[in-house]
């Protein structure tokens, strides 16, 4: 048997776990690991400019591929810088393994230089964590970390390794475990057959059904099954912010995103539904609005791999614990056996209603905002032009704010894993590093980061990482000279008192900034230039391009749920309520 040092084992175990790329940043406690990294070629390391970005990049990599993302950081400040990234992944159930260096075992608890209790600090935002105390345990721990991160409801796992455990002179036999078994962790995959049958029957008997699907469908690669079931039934489908792309947005049966900034037709259909089929979704407060007024007539069928998501916010009448893929497959086969068809007459009448809502108040059927012209560029139009220029087939990462909602509403995602945003934590700064991860995984694809002049400045240093590794992402910055989403709330709830949401004249020259990093900067101020400049941007295939697009400052995101109301209580624009 081969004998390796702890540091060498870390890297070898990553290789054996199938890892090809690690995003990270070195420092004292991780240096033995970094030295082992230097002496091999199987695992490529990408040096970011801030540890938060390492985790977001690993996250973007994971979201776009379905594989586990990996980050490596040092102890203390390296570890704490990673925290926002870990929390972001945790809230959206993204499988990551984050390896952190730690001070030597003998120094733990001494307030040693760069000591932070990483297992303690990260505890509420990880799926699980390990502190490895012996070189002999590293391989098995790393194997467990990947297993835990990627199975059940996925999530980030932290592996904290004290420096002495990676000591180069201490060599131990290396063996990669052929399989992982844990008596305390055995996630449920298959749904209870009786419950699945009840779910199918209830679904088939519906007169005003809605299929409400979330990020779980994407995480479990169950999009194909979802589409099959929905199309077989001819039921309307709405996706959550995290679920966009699981059902093709350009299909007739898609009624748009639901929730706080969801479409009128999706939110109203939910409110009036008699059966809601929730799959891989979690009745988040950004979806439900006031829980007491939530969908008063609906029987709730809820499929989720995580039992704690079921009946947490909204009581499920028919709960099914299992993976989206296996339960949907089983539902399809039970539907075949039962040979019962949906009530077509009722469903046709339901569609007539929905189509009417769509025609009257939808955001796709007619323009719900003033048109762009001259030097007034509407942010919505930027997304529409982006959609057109990329033929709807780009990977779009996003930051957080109005631009994020406009992207979610107006870029019609027809495929899963194309829309990559921080939905749960809402992390400004996510977009650019996530785009790097996506681009690394898909070198030939068009990758665009839709951002705002506020968010982009939270991880702008990564423009340098893009240079180092030739990651030609396109930055589409909707520059409204404000923390736009904050300002929208201040307009709506604080009589337009713009407390700290404006920068006065302090914004940088983004074109010059991009150029300083060796990239291309393009500023757009007139609507008639937008299409051409966007084309120019994507024609520069091998370059990072920063599009600084000056958009209408006064625009708000609509529809918007009225706080304290039901799902269907919406502001449709500045003047109109429903």
């Amino acid at each position, binding site marked *: 048997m081969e004998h390796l040092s702890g540091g060498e084992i870390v890297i070898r175990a990553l290789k054996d776990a199938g890892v090809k790329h690690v995003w990270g940043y070195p420092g004292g406690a991780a240096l033995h690991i970094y030295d082992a990294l230097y002496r091999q070629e199987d695992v490529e390391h990408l040096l970011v400019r801030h540890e938060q970005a390492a985790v977001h990049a690993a996250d973007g990599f994971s979201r776009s591929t379905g594989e586990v993302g990996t980050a490596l950081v040092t102890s203390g400040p390296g570890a704490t810088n990673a925290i926002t990234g870990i929390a972001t992944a945790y809230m959206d159930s993204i499988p990551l393994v984050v390896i952190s260096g730690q001070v030597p075992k003998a120094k733990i608890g001494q307030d040693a230089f760069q000591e932070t209790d990483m297992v303690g600090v990260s*505890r509420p935002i990880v*799926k699980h964590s390990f*502190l490895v105390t012996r070189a002999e345990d590293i391989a098995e721990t790393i194997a467990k970390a990947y297993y835990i991160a990627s199975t059940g409801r996925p999530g980030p796992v932290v592996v904290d390794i004290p420096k002495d455990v990676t000591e180069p002179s201490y060599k131990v036999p290396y063996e990669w475990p052929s399989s992982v078994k844990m008596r*305390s962790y055995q996630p449920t995959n298959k749904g209870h057959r009786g419950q699945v049958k009840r779910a199918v029957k209830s679904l088939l008997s519906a007169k005003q059904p809605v299929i409400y699907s979330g990020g779980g469908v994407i995480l479990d690669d169950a999009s194909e099954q979802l589409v099959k079931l929905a199309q077989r039934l001819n039921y309307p489908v709405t996706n959550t912010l995290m679920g966009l792309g699981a059902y093709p947005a350009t299909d007739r049966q898609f009624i748009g995103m639901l929730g706080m900034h969801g479409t009128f037709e999706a939110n109203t259909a939910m409110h009036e539904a008699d059966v809601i089929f929730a799959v891989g979704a979690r009745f988040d407060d950004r979806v439900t609005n006031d829980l007491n007024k939530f969908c008063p007539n609906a029987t709730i069928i809820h499929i989720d791999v995580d039992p704690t998501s079921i009946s947490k916010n909204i009581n499920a009448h028919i709960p099914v614990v299992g993976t989206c893929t296996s339960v949907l497959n089983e539902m399809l086969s039970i539907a075949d056996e039962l040979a019962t068809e949906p009530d077509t007459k009722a469903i046709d009448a339901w569609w007539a209603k929905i189509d009417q809502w769509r025609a009257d108040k939808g955001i796709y059927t007619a323009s719900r905002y003033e048109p762009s012209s001259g030097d007034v560029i509407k942010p919505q139009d930027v997304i529409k032009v982006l959609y057109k220029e990329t033929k709807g087939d780009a990977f779009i990462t996003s930051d957080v704010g109005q631009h994020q909602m406009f992207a979610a509403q107006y870029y019609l995602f027809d495929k899963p894993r194309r829309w990559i945003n921080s939905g749960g934590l809402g992390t400004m700064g996510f977009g650019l590093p996530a785009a790097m991860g996506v681009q690394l995984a898909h070198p030939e694809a068009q990758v665009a980061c839709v951002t705002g002049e506020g968010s982009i400045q939270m991880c702008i240093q990564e423009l340098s990482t893009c240079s180092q590794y030739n990651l030609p992402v396109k930055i589409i910055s909707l520059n409204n000279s404000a923390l736009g989403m904050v300002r929208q709330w201040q307009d709506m709830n604080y009589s337009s008192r713009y407390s700290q949401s404006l920068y006065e004249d302090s914004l940088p020259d983004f074109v010059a900034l991009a150029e300083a990093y060796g990239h291309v900067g393009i500023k757009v101020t007139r609507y008639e230039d937008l299409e051409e400049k966007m084309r120019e941007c994507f024609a520069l295939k091998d370059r990072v391009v920063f599009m600084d697009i000056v958009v209408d400052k006064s625009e708000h995101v609509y529809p918007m749920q009225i706080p304290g109301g039901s799902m269907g209580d919406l502001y449709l624009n500045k003047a109109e309520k429903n």
Partner: protein
Amino acid sequence: MKRIISILLENESGALSRVVGLFAQRGYNIDTLTVAPTDDDTLSRLTLTTQGDDQMAEQIVKQLHKLIDTIKVVDLTVGSHIERELMLVKLKASDPEIRAELKSCVEIFRGHVVDVTASTYTVQLTGDSDKLDAFIDAVREIGIMEVVRSGVSGISRGDKFLRV
């Protein structure tokens, strides 16, 4: 309603802090908590009591189960069960009359005087929490110097058991 939740946990570093952390993180209270290794020293048995309605108890159980280190979780309150708590009480007892009164009180509660000085009695008592509360009420006037309670341990009645 009072809930007694019993957990079989991997006896590993960090496992207990995850359980306790979960309660803080989700806004649940822990009223009592006891933990010790079982006959199999790779396992810890943990009993905790909390307050909550059925829905909350169900969430707590599910959340606990989701922790990677937990092997089994049950809400003992759902079925018939035995609940025991150990209490040590140090009482002021210099007056002979009071000493006599205390002794009879301890007898009534089936306790034991486990330590005696010229001015104190130390009493040991086991039972469910209500019984221990009742004893405290009975001797409060006399003068309690110190109370130490172990927190509740619980086990289900009958053939059911919690084991790997």
